[in-house]
């Protein structure tokens, strides 16, 4: 092959990558915790601050862990879907109330419906950091052994629910 073709070949390879890059999101940060045990925590519950909640309580069940906040507009977008999902009883949803105040959080749930079996109050965001949360909303699918199977970054959409989350939960529940 002529040496003079080398620059052209290199360029076309780079152009191929650039094309692929147009359909990727450079700001999305995938979680390294997928396939690893869900980090432990022991936080007070939103509905009863005296009581604590921890992932250990959910062992043996497949569940969704949804990080949200009352000040987050995108969380409000996904909220109706969560409420619908909770009504079917298909999979329990535990909430992580991220950097919020109990009063605002409870007010929002009273107003818009409460899809959560329980809510863990993460006032300073530490548990969020442990889970690699960098924005809300984010949702984790956790299996019967307490391992994180999937992370949904951003609000849950109908497509994500239909194509990814529900099939995955079904598969994990059958295990």
């Amino acid at each position: 092959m002529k040496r003079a073709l080398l620059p052209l070949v290199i360029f076309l390879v780079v152009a191929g990558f650039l094309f692929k890059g147009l359909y990727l999101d450079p700001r999305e940060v995938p979680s390294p915790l997928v396939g690893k045990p869900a980090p432990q925590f022991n936080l007070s519950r939103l509905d009863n601050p005296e009581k604590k909640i921890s992932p250990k309580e959910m062992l043996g069940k497949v569940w969704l862990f949804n990080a949200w906040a009352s000040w987050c507009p995108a969380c409000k977008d996904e909220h109706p879907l969560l409420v619908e999902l909770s009504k079917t009883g298909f999979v329990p949803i535990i909430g992580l109330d991220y950097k919020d105040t109990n009063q605002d959080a409870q007010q929002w749930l009273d107003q818009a419906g409460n899809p959560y079996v329980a809510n863990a109050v993460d006032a300073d965001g530490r548990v969020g950091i442990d889970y690699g949360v960098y924005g809300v909303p984010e949702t984790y699918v956790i299996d019967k052994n307490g391992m994180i199977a999937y992370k949904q970054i951003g609000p849950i959409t109908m497509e994500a629910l239909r194509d990814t989350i529900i099939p995955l939960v079904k598969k994990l529940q059958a295990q």
Partner: protein
Amino acid sequence: MLKKITHLLAVCLLICSFNIVAQEARPMQDNAAVEVQVQRLASQLRCLVCQNQTLADSHAELAQDLVQEIREMAAKGMTDKEITDYLVARYGDFVRYSPPLKASTVLLWLGPFALLLAGGFGLFIQLRRRQRMAVDAPLTEEEARKVSELLNK
């Protein structure tokens, strides 16, 4: 004599009452040694919600939270590597501005030097080859003369 001493004492007291010795500004963080480590780490780690900024330079809330975590870890005596690993375990390699050396980044880290060596080697070969060329200089000079004639028309 006593009058002089009293006078002196009065003057001293007067000056002391107008004491405007400047206050030393307190550092933002109390532990200076820990802070050096914190700043070093914060300037090498990425803010996850910004458009390409270090944790040190970012005003984003998550960035401030992470810097605070780093500060607490540093105060506990954790090393740079331990703190970095802690964050990488939660956010992945994306959070590091200095990519780790792994199989997937070998090309990145060694590429430039390999290229340099290849370039230098190629250069050397080319130079040797050129020296053995049969093209004569006089022809080039004649062409150059023709060119300057053309240009000066």
